[in-house]
């Protein structure tokens, strides 16, 4: 039987669709192991004192929210648990909406957390690396108001926070440029503020050299798997964890495709040689 390439393609598409959908409908509940890089990020937040002010920067848009949104929720929840105060910023305009959605979700479990006292959303600023450098000199110059139009000086949690140096840690959830790399370059390498973060799995390999002895990055969450690891570290069964079964099955399927493709190519080659 010989299939046309187009037909072959459509069969592959359909098989993949079912391989991903079925485990979502019938979860298996497989466990995964926690990698060291996730632990490093976790420890940074775990070991920061109460009442410190931290930044979580939402540098992504909805196209990668499946990977990054669970990280954002888990990190906000972790910071809330440790009574740290969270500033949300965004180097991508869509990040502002992502931040609001994340706060809404986490605050439903922490009803006592108050906007302005425990968290605030300073919103989007253009300019990437240059803007972060400006934040190193003065946060209120860059953010005259938050996204509710409250002047910076009137936000209670920001009373003693004037520049990046006053921030205990920064986490950038990043799906491209500007994002984690810019935060690391300026906030960590220029102003010595600890930077951690999460990125899509695609960019993760490129960030690994920064998790080094000097701790240019304090750990790294790379993709959905790392998000589920973080969720299990803070003891929360979040959205990333429930998706890992589908992820595992799909990986298995891709490997099967590679294997079949190679066997087929090998057969074809042998056929031609004869």
């Amino acid at each position, binding site marked *: 039987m010989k299939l046309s390439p187009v037909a072959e393609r*459509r069969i592959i*598409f359909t098989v*993949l*669709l079912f391989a*991903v*959908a079925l485990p*979502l*409908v019938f979860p298996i509940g497989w466990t995964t192991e926690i990698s060291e890089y996730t632990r490093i990020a976790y420890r940074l937040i775990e070991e920061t004192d109460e009442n410190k002010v931290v930044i979580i920067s939402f540098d992504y848009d909805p*196209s*990668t*929210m*499946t*990977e990054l949104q669970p990280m954002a929720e888990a990190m906000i929840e972790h910071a809330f648990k440790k009574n740290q105060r969270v500033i949300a910023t965004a180097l991508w*305009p*869509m990040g*502002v909406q992502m931040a609001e959605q994340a706060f809404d979700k986490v605050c439903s479990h922490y009803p006592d957390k108050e906007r302005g006292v425990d968290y605030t959303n300073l*919103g*989007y*600023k*253009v300019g990437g*690396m*240059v803007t972060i*450098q400006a934040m190193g000199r003065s946060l209120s110059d*860059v*953010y*005259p*108001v938050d*996204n509710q*139009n409250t002047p910076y000086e009137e936000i209670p949690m920001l009373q003693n926070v004037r520049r990046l140096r006053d921030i205990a840690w920064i986490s950038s959830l990043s799906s491209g440029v500007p994002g984690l790399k810019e935060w*690391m*370059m*300026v906030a960590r*390498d*220029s102003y010595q503020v600890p930077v951690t973060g999460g990125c*899509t*799995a*695609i960019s*993760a*390999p*490129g960030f690994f*050299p*920064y998790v*080094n*002895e*000097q701790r*240019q990055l304090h750990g790294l969450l*790379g*993709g*959905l*798997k790392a998000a589920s690891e973080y969720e299990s570290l803070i003891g929360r069964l979040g959205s990333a964890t429930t*998706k890992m079964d*589908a*992820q595992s099955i*799909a*990986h298995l399927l*891709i490997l099967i495709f590679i294997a079949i493709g190679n066997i087929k190519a090998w057969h074809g080659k042998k056929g031609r040689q004869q």
Partner: protein
Amino acid sequence: MIQIMHVFGIWLAAFFTLSIFSFLYKDNPFYKFAEQVFVGLSAAYWLVYIIYSIMVPNLFAKLIDDFSGNIVLLIPATLGLMMLMRLHPKTQWLSRYPISIMIGTTAGISMLRYMKSDILEQVTATMINPFSANTVSGVLGNLLLIIGTITGVYFFYFSKKVEGIYKVPSKIGIWFLMVSFGATFGYTVMARISLLIGRLEFLLSDWLHIIK
């Protein structure tokens, strides 16, 4: 009413999701329509956010509240308007001034930051005593890290013929690059699958209510 609008919203989202997926069968009007809607919404989103998060708070509000105190802000405002002159061919040359200031600032800052973070910090992060690790795999890893970095950089060194003994480090360098590309490949598979999972979850749970 809210309930009806909520359901309508979900059906709208499902319609757009399926329209995009229809590209998998072949390029078709639904896909083209959905795509152009996306382009339009995205442009409007950027515009609205630039106005409400940059223009108003960082420029106009400051000028309105305290004009004489912020008079210096008229300079970037003028430069910004000169940027917009690009829209007209006759006045296009005016945009060169703001562009040159932006490019000059970016060039200066990226020169410093890349030199520091991607060169110096990476060099010092490779200056490690490989034998300081307390496990065999740690020592092995450190050695691989040092050798891989050196040979990798050598692979990108173009001033020497790749012959005889000089071929060796270049060859090893490319092996390391291949291993890293393999890792990137694996991680990319992971990322793409994750995004699909996200969409299917929406369809199966919010739209069809198959998953609770």
